[in-house]
């Protein structure tokens, strides 16, 4: 018998091979295997025959001489053009069905996907694959140490340019007892900074501020800030900015990176003319005739890149609870000049705040200090709780505001008559509350509330 066309697969019907469907007397297995569903599996053609239909729809080489109507003759062709809702019509299934094995293709969803995949073009498949890999790599990137290294690398995220120094163990050693609350403050503060640093790829240097006989010159006791900054500059050669943080500080918004929050737009935030906010009433700029125009200008050279010391002012003047210094020759000079025995000898009775007063003195008298000092609005790096600077009530310049999501809170002066641990705890919880993600919101605002309404018991999830 000659064929007018080559055998080709018919979708859903298997090979339209003439040899298989010839009326050979036995067009179906005598006995089907008992499948998992208990019904015998039959060949398609035999089923058609059994159902009284007029046999296979291959009229050109059908040997069956039966009378067939239009519908029975074109049944297959019509049905294949209809949309299919099950994958079981796939021809490949016929072999696998009824073998007594669990078959993945019984799962309708997967089967459907398979079917979609089967009908999809090669190009589309490649595109989907690329998309899939892109998604996968993004997920892997954000859920692996890769993101950490990306953020750290100086030419990518630039995290190595920032080092946080945390002055811990204040007054430890011989000066005072450290109780449970002090330990708790320290633990929370350190954990907070560690988490922040880990998130953004910065470096954290925790320094021991305990009172010790550290210098041959005993005058210099508790002036260690300067030396720690200098040590950190040496220890982290890639660091560009050193951020000093007192122990009683809490980073309220760990999702703010220093780059985004401050340094990428430094020129917008920094103010160099102290007259903008001048609680100390320092006359600015200097007016001495022997100084050059840059020193006489209220804003130095006006370029934010020349700012080497960034600090904020509270109600009483400079505050060194949270400040930045940049690695530069200027900074070396400042750190070198900050403590001077002659100045100390003359002023140590007046200078209750040591470094802070010394810096104010330097700023007031030295043009070269003013040129490279910039101030940030206090609430950008150093918000106060309502207890600090409380004489004039709440000041939007100074005090923390939840609505504005201030970056850092500094519980300045809490050791004098206020409850350090209480404040720290409250801010910790507030920070957590403000930065909850979907899962935390779900379990706390939904599940726990539901549980409470049902059982009357409060639960912490």
């Amino acid at each position: 018998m000659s064929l007018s066309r080559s055998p080709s697969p018919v979708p859903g019907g298997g090979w339209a091979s003439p040899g298989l469907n010839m009326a050979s007397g036995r067009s179906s297995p005598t006995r089907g295997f008992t499948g998992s569903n208990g019904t015998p599996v039959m060949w398609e053609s035999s089923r058609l025959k059994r159902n009284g239909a007029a046999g296979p729809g291959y009229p050109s080489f059908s040997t069956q001489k039966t009378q067939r109507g239009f519908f029975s003759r074109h049944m297959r062709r019509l049905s294949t053009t209809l949309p299919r809702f099950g994958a079981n019509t796939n021809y490949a299934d016929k072999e696998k069905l009824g073998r007594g094995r669990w078959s993945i293709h019984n799962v309708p969803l997967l089967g459907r996907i398979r079917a979609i995949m089967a009908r999809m073009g090669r190009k589309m498949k490649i595109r989907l694959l690329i998309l899939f890999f892109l998604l996968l790599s993004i997920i892997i990137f954000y859920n692996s140490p890769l993101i950490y290294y990306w953020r750290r690398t100086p030419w990518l995220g630039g995290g190595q340019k920032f080092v946080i120094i945390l002055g811990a163990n204040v007054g430890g050693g011989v000066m005072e007892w450290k109780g449970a609350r002090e330990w708790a403050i320290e633990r929370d503060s350190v954990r907070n900074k560690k988490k922040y640093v880990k998130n953004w790829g910065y470096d954290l240097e925790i320094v021991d501020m305990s009172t010790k006989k550290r210098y041959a010159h005993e005058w210099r006791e508790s002036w260690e800030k300067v030396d720690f900054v200098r040590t950190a500059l040496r220890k982290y050669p890639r660091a560009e900015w050193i951020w000093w943080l007192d122990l009683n500080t809490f980073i309220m918004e760990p999702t703010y990176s220093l780059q985004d929050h401050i340094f990428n737009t430094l020129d917008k935030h920094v103010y160099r003319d102290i007259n903008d906010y001048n609680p100390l009433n320092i006359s600015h700029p200097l007016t001495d005739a022997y100084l050059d125009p840059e020193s006489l200008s209220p804003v130095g050279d006006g370029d934010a890149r020349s700012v080497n010391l960034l600090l904020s002012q509270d109600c009483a003047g400079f505050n060194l609870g949270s400040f930045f210094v940049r690695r530069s020759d200027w900074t070396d000079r400042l750190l070198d000049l900050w403590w001077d025995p002659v100045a100390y000898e003359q002023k140590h009775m007046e200078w209750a705040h040591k470094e802070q007063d010394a810096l104010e003195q330097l700023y007031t008298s030295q043009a070269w200090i003013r040129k490279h000092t910039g101030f940030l609005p206090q609430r950008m790096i150093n918000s106060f709780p309502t207890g600090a600077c409380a004489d004039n009530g709440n000041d939007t310049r100074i005090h923390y505001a939840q609505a504005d999501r201030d970056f850092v809170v500094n519980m300045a002066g809490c050791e004098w008559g206020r409850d350090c641990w209480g404040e720290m705890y409250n801010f910790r919880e507030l920070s957590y509350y403000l930065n909850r993600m979907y899962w935390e919101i779900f379990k706390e605002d939904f599940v726990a509330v539901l549980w409470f309404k049902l059982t009357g018991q409060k639960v912490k999830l």
Partner: protein
Amino acid sequence: MHFAYPPRKASNPRPYLPRTSRLPGLRRSRLKVIALAGLAFLALVYLVARPSGGRHGAAGRRPPSGSPPAVVVTVLDEKLYSTGYLDAVRENRVQYAEKHGMLPGCAGAVGGYKAFFANVGDYDLDGAPGSWTSVVAMRHALTTFPDCRYVWFLDQNAFIMNPKLKIEDHVMKASKLDGLMKKEFPVVPPDSIIKTFSHLKGKDVDVVFTQDKDGLSTGSFVLRNGEWAKFFLETWFGPIYRAYNFQKAETHALEHIVQWHPTVLAKLAIVDQDVINAYSKKTNGVEYKDGDIAVRLAECAAVGPEACEAEAQSFVQQWRKAFRNS
């Protein structure tokens, strides 16, 4: 469409390639490669020139252009000293500056040295001794000549004796200075534990001092203009030091700064006295000999102005002769 036979190729192939509508180089496959390369290039550009990349860089500061190359600063005490004497001192500095103002082939004083004079009492010292004027006058000279390269402070009881020597060659040239400067040398004699740095290079030196028998001498020193110079002078002039009543005022303040602050010491070189600061008598230091750039009448000021004027006579004649001959 199917044909029984594929269309025939021409038996005589054409001698040229058929022209396509597109540019020959831009095949589809090649376009893809070009697009990918472009993307990669853009990504690279983004990484390199990202805003955070260069933003934290320090602002570049223009180095001084060197006009004038050097300034000679002198503080005059018009109340104590006679006008004639001070005029001789002024004339000495101005003539020295003019000698180096004459560029070959040029008539004017283009690119020449400048002399800068200040008077005791010009500046408000907050009650500190008048000798502090020298420090602030130096600072003023840096402001007046922001493009000068070197500033040479020379005490009023001193004369420039050798007009041929230039500050930038005689003292401040890096190679020259490497040989001149004393390393590992106690900054305050005889046995200060603070010594000049051993690894300091001539090109890094920003200020050159000398020592006489008492210690650092502030009667003659050379400073290189720059940020460091301003820092140094302003620090030295700090009100804290002025208020401290150092026994020798600014000289002891300097010794204090140098010993306590390594950022100052790291830029400081000590050279032999006869390089810039030879004395007229050898009781307190190295004695002047012919050919030295300058001579200082170091001890007369303690006696009185008349002593200085008397001692100066012979030197005034000498420098006038030397200037005339050069």
